[in-house]
């Protein structure tokens, strides 16, 4: 990667859902170690933007470059260079906490136990997912961030339902990711522990 090249480079991105234009001509970059907060009213297109960048929604125009590589040329490779935490926790109630995360560890690499402990879930590892509280489920979803490192995190309301201690843990996790040269794009209504984050209002 060339020095000074941004991790995420979004150029003239447009998104249309149904007949409605959600956003168009959107351009921004997020450098290594940088963080960008997406804010805006409900329905402003924050989640759609994250999904387009992840490659889950088709872009109506423009392009997304991750570490200089266009997302559209190699979707599977693009997916492996980012982590997307959606507003849904993607957790199977029948599997234990450790099994839920172990599935993603098998796909992406990384260690389950340290990832669980980073979010204070170590003691819950053998509990089935169905007994978790809302905040614990959210933490289990966030624990996926602690698996094998990638350069870009896309976070959709990451702190929703979290208690103060868990927000602090998420803050530590995000700080470590940025210190290691990672970038974060987060959509949120709540204040997030992301010092020096720029803000993009949709």
């Amino acid at each position: 990667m060339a020095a000074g090249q941004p991790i995420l480079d979004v150029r003239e991105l447009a998104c249309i859902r149904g007949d409605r234009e959600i956003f168009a001509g959107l351009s921004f970059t997020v450098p290594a170690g940088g963080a960008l907060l997406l804010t805006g009213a409900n329905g402003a297109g924050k989640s759609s933007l994250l999904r387009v960048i992840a490659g889950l929604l088709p872009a109506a125009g423009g392009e997304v470059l991750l570490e200089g590589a266009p997302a559209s040329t190699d979707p599977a490779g693009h997916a492996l260079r980012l982590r997307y935490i959606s507003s849904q926790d993607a957790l199977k109630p029948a599997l234990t906490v450790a099994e839920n995360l172990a599935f993603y560890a098998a796909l992406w690499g990384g260690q389950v136990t340290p990832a669980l402990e980073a979010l204070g879930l170590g003691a819950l590892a053998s509990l089935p997912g169905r007994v978790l509280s809302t905040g614990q489920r959210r933490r289990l979803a966030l624990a996926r961030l602690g698996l094998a490192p990638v350069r870009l995190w896309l976070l959709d309301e990451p702190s929703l339902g979290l208690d103060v201690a868990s927000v602090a843990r998420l803050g530590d996790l995000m700080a470590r990711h940025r210190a290691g040269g990672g970038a974060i794009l987060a959509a949120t209504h709540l204040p997030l522990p992301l010092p020096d984050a720029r803000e993009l209002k949709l």
Partner: protein
Amino acid sequence: MNASVFGGLLAVLGREWKLALRHPSDTLAAVLFFVLVAALFPFGVGPAPETFSRLAPGALLAAALLAALLPLDRLFGAEAEDGSLDQLLLSGLPRGVLAAAKALGHWLTTGVPLIAATPIAAAMLNLPVEAWGVAMAALALATALLSLLGTLGAALTLGARRGGVLLPLLVLPLAIPAVIFGAAAIEAASAGLSAAPFLLLLGAGVSIAAPLAPLAAGAALQND
């Protein structure tokens, strides 16, 4: 296929297996449906054992394929509902491989139990014992074909309103060859003839669908 793709396929398959073991109700429902439909036939046809044996091959095939359809609308629907589908689509696995893993998972958790229950249904339909082995082989191939076609149907109808109704309408017409050749194989076996040509034709159908259906399902898979 490189090692990481194969590992990913095994991970998805292992998860399907674990989920089916923890929540056996979907599998049980399909098996019970199959056995109950087979048990209903004697009531409708009346006490004429020789009529049953005429009916048995077609009844077995139709009952098994309908039973195997039951869990299909949850195949991707359940993943889409809880957000897992997004993570699976971002797993780095080619979407065709993902669909193949789901199809294989459906066959292992629905098709195989149906094959195991075939002797019970066959006994109720008065199928000669000599034909039970062929009946199980025919059902194994027919349910495999249905798992493949059904995965394609499930991917196509994902997110459609009334997808649960659309899915059988889409899949069952495509499964007609499986009924024809499957029933013919069982009939041949109960008449003491060789079932091999019909089983080979069924096998040919499965081997055509095995690469094509997951590819098409993968292309259709989208969550928006």
